[in-house]
């Protein structure tokens, strides 16, 4: 659907990583989490980063989000936009209502009260939680909390969404619904000319095939890009379709080969 070339130019990329290296500790104890990772994500592209645990996927997202600094290489986000980051846990503020949680980034951006109210209503509507604004996070189910987290991240009005296994802790049925919603939201945004670029980390290959335009496979310790494939399946997709299963099988084989090389 999005017709980007196989090698998008860095100059037009929404997110451009060039030779990103991250080392934790120093001397003999130094651990190389990421080793010269280069990746260009086109505006409006949905890229899934897949890898076994410990491959530095989350580290990569933290770096792009600006919550951590690179040891080498560079990261550029188009227009110096601040990407929104979603975690596996909703990370909602328990002392605030659902609506107030969504309002926090709007307050921090200095929006006026009336505008904030309207935006909160709109965002809760987007994630199908219109009537839950006055509830508290602990009153909601896991899936609903993750939707609130999505609404709160979207309140940043950012063109780049970073998602760190956001549906990893949810049951399969809830996850399917959230896949549909995320796809719908992303498609809608891209159709309005305000493209939403998504960098999505998961260890679930099927989820990657279900959602992404492109799957990028990372090796573990150190994390390095070892394989990339485009996913040209028409949208909306279904996770149980044969096309998705075929792509997933292909990527799984690659992943197995990689894990096998490490001997466990």
């Amino acid at each position, binding site marked *: 659907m999005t017709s980007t070339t196989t090698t998008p130019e860095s100059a037009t990329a929404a997110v451009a990583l060039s030779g990103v290296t991250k080392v934790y500790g120093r001397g003999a104890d130094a651990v190389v989490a990421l080793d010269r990772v280069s990746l260009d994500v086109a505006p409006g592209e949905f890229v899934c980063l897949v890898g076994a645990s410990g491959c530095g996927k989350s580290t990569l997202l*933290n770096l792009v*989000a600006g*919550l951590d600094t690179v040891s080498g290489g560079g990261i550029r986000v188009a227009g110096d936009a*601040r990407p*929104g*980051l979603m*975690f596996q*846990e909703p*990370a909602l*503020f*328990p*002392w*605030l209502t659902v609506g107030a949680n969504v309002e*926090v*980034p709007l*307050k*921090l*951006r200095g929006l006026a009260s009336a505008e904030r109210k309207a935006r909160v209503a709109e965002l809760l509507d987007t994630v*199908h939680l219109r009537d839950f604004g006055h509830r*508290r*996070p*602990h*009153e*909601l*189910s*896991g*899936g*609903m909390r993750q939707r609130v987290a999505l609404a*709160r*991240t979207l*309140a*940043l009005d950012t063109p780049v969404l970073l998602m760190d296994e956001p549906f990893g802790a949810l049951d399969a*049925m*809830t996850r*399917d*619904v959230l896949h*549909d*919603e995320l796809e*719908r939201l992303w498609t809608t945004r891209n159709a309005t000319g305000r493209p939403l670029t998504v960098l999505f980390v998961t260890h679930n290959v099927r989820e990657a095939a279900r959602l992404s335009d492109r799957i990028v496979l990372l090796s573990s310790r150190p994390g390095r890009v070892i394989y990339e494939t485009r996913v040209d399946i028409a949208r*909306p997709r279904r996770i149980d379709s044969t096309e998705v299963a075929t792509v997933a099988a292909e990527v799984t084989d690659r992943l197995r080969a990689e894990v096998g090389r490490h001997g466990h």
Partner: protein
Amino acid sequence: MATDNLVAQNETISGLDALENASQQKLPGRASRIWSLTWPKLTALAFVVAIWQVLVWAEWKPEYALPAPLTVAQDLWSWAGTSALWEGLLITLRRAAYGFGAAVVVGLLLGSAVARIKVLRAALGSMITALQTMPSIAWFPLAILLFQLNEQAIFFVVVLGAAPSIANGVIHGVDYVPPLLVRAGRNLGARGFSLYRYVIAPAALPAIVAGLKQGWAFAWRSLMAGELLVIIAKSTSIGVQLTYARELSDAPRVISVMIVILILGLLVDLLFTKADHAIRRRWGLLDRD
């Protein structure tokens, strides 16, 4: 068509969500809830009074040293009818309010500074804990030398007694803010002061309230010790009345004063417990009730 499917699916999920959320148990009536909380306390109280009465009947100690519960109740009643009790209460509570209020200010400022600034933590962190373990009554000889027998000496010790607990509550609270919430806050655009305002301060609130509660207990003890030691002429605070009652061998009054001190401490403690409860309920940290 596709939208219809999506809506239908959503409804299924909200059905499941509703099941998952089925934690709302039916609340019993308010009266029966209060009763279920009260009767164990009343029974325990009756038990204590019964033992007391048995000791009096057994003539364990002479009547002038250990009066009967009824005698004390009569004394408490007549004391409550005089202005002495209420004036004493006023003096003592005003001291408590000033001392504790100042301790809150000092504790919050000190705690936030130590939690935030590394050098200060290295320098003062263990000193605050050391201060907290120091029995505040041990401060009085020095306080009396510094300020003589007056209000300032009491104020000084009350603040010293309570502030370290409050500061420790703040430090503890800030230290145990979940890192994930801080990362989320930073990603949402909170930096420096706004990070404190939107994330760290509210996340630390339960620990801060616990520190305040402990600080109050220390302030109240220091104040009572102070009122027994630092007798100021014409000031008939609760503690002074306790001392006078002992000097006049007025045992019923000694116990009456003690009961008043106990009740006051309990009432304030109840306030803090209520605040703590309200916070935990809001946060969903309470399982039931």
